[in-house]
Each structure stands twice: as C-alpha cells, then as structure tokens.
C-alpha cells in the first residue's frame, strides 16, 4: 500500500496521508483502507488534490486526507523511519482573485519561500500548485502512498535556495570561501591583479 522505498528519492512528488502524525497507527489505517478498497479508488480519481480515508475502530476514529508532498531528502534507506517533506497546495481561483501579487510572485519565480509547480507534466499534479518551503515536516514513510511526479535538478536548486532561507541556515562561511570579496567587502582577487 505504501510507496516503495526506491520511489522516495529527493525531489519526488508523492501523495501522503495528512495529518503527518507519526503516532497514528498507520498499519491499521492502511490495512483497513485496503480491505475497503476505498482509499485506492479515491487516489485514482482525485482532482482537487484531496481525498478522504476514514477509519473507524472501537478505540479510535481517525480521518485522513491525501496531500501531495515534495520529498526533500533521500528516503530510499530502510534504516530511517521518517523522511522530510514540504507540503504542496493548489493555487486556487480565490488566490488569483484576492492575492494577485502573491500569485504573480510565484509565476515570476521570485517568491523567497514558495515555488510554483504543477505546470509541467513531470510534476504529476492535476492542478497548478505551490510548494510551501516555509515549513518542513517529517513523515513516516509508510504514510507516503505513491510517487506521482518529480522535480528536475534545476528545480531542486530553486528548492534548496528557499530552504536555506526558510531554515535560516548560515552559509556565510561557504560563501566566504567561494567569494572572499563579499565577506571582505573589497574587490575580487581578479580585480586586485595589477593590470
């Protein structure tokens, strides 16, 4: 029922059970949903990037929705239970009407923390969407049901730039090694050469 580990490569776009709560008894959820045949059917037919799996037991009633996520790190090893993801949400008509400048930033690829996806076939999404990289969440790999698409290496570079901002990672030491003129505030070594 869950996606094969080989599919959980960095950059994979997958469908996962939401909320991403590790404490939920996922084996029970998947077994029950599988026996009902309901979860698969709804995954196949989803058109609003949303579906529901409702599992009822005497002890617990849990309701999941299906959400697309971007896998941010390699999840192909069976040694780690969780993998980091960011959520993918659709760009709605309401967004276009009420938040036009936000949509324009996405379309022009100048949003500092979010990235537009869904406009290319290889993304595997039915609707134009955005990855919200302001938030990163661990997901148990069993809650990732299947891979639907992927981002290219160039697209993952854009993801990495946004993650550096989002996670407030200090890369100044690396920048200083690569471009010492910036940290020193002076001229480049090439410019400093006598002419």
């Amino acid at each position: 029922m869950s996606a094969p580990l080989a599919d959980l490569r960095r950059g994979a776009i997958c469908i996962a059970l939401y909320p991403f709560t590790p404490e939920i008894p996922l084996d029970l959820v998947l077994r029950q949903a599988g026996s009902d045949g309901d979860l698969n059917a709804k995954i196949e037919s989803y058109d609003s990037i949303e579906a529901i799996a409702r599992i009822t037991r005497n002890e617990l009633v849990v309701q999941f929705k299906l959400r697309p996520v971007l896998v941010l790190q390699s999840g192909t090893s069976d040694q780690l239970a969780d993998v980091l993801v960011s959520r993918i949400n659709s760009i709605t008509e309401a967004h276009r009407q009420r938040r036009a400048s936000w949509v324009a930033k996405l379309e022009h690829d100048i949003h500092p923390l979010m990235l537009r996806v869904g406009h290319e076939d290889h993304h595997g999404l039915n609707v134009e969407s955005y990855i919200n990289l302001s938030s990163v969440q661990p997901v148990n790999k069993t809650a990732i049901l299947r891979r639907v698409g992927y981002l290219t290496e160039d697209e993952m570079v854009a993801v990495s730039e946004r993650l550096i901002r989002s996670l407030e990672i200090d890369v100044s030491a690396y920048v200083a090694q690569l471009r010492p003129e910036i940290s020193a505030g002076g001229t480049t070594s090439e410019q400093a050469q006598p002419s």
Partner: protein
Amino acid sequence: MNAVTIPASSFRVPQEARDALNQREAVTVVAHKRSQYVLLHPDDYAVVSPILERHRAGRPIPVDRLMTEDDFAIIREESLDAPDAGILEAWGS
C-alpha cells in the same frame, strides 16, 4: 554592498515602468515568462538593501521578514483547509 552605477542615458525604461516606479511599485522584467530583473524606487531599495547585503553574504534572515501579509494569510488558510482531518474520537471520549 557593491553596486554598479550607469547613466540614465544608457538605460531605457518604458513610460509604464517609470510611472510604476514613481508610484513606488516594483517593476519585474520578464523574458520567456521568467523574471530577469526587478527595478525598485531608490527609497525602496534603501529599505531592502540591508537584507540583500546579509543574503548575499550567506547570513540568515529571520524568516518572517521574508514574508508578506499575503503569505501569513495563505499559511493560516492552509492550516484551516483540513479541519476535519486527524483524530476525531478516542476511546473513552
């Protein structure tokens, strides 16, 4: 932050863009549907240049300073879009 200065005579800005800049709006120059440059009014550049300088040096910037009211609203909406997902009932509840 180092900046290159060029004379206005060597740079043509369409009237529409001049009007927008005079209104303190940013102007995005696109090519093949992708942003190539963003032009700012000098007073706006003065506001963002410290952030740009930190960013260029690889220093972290508090994430909320990179977000607009639209971003905050959209993230709030995201958190509300599945209010019926999660544990609905538990034994003894």
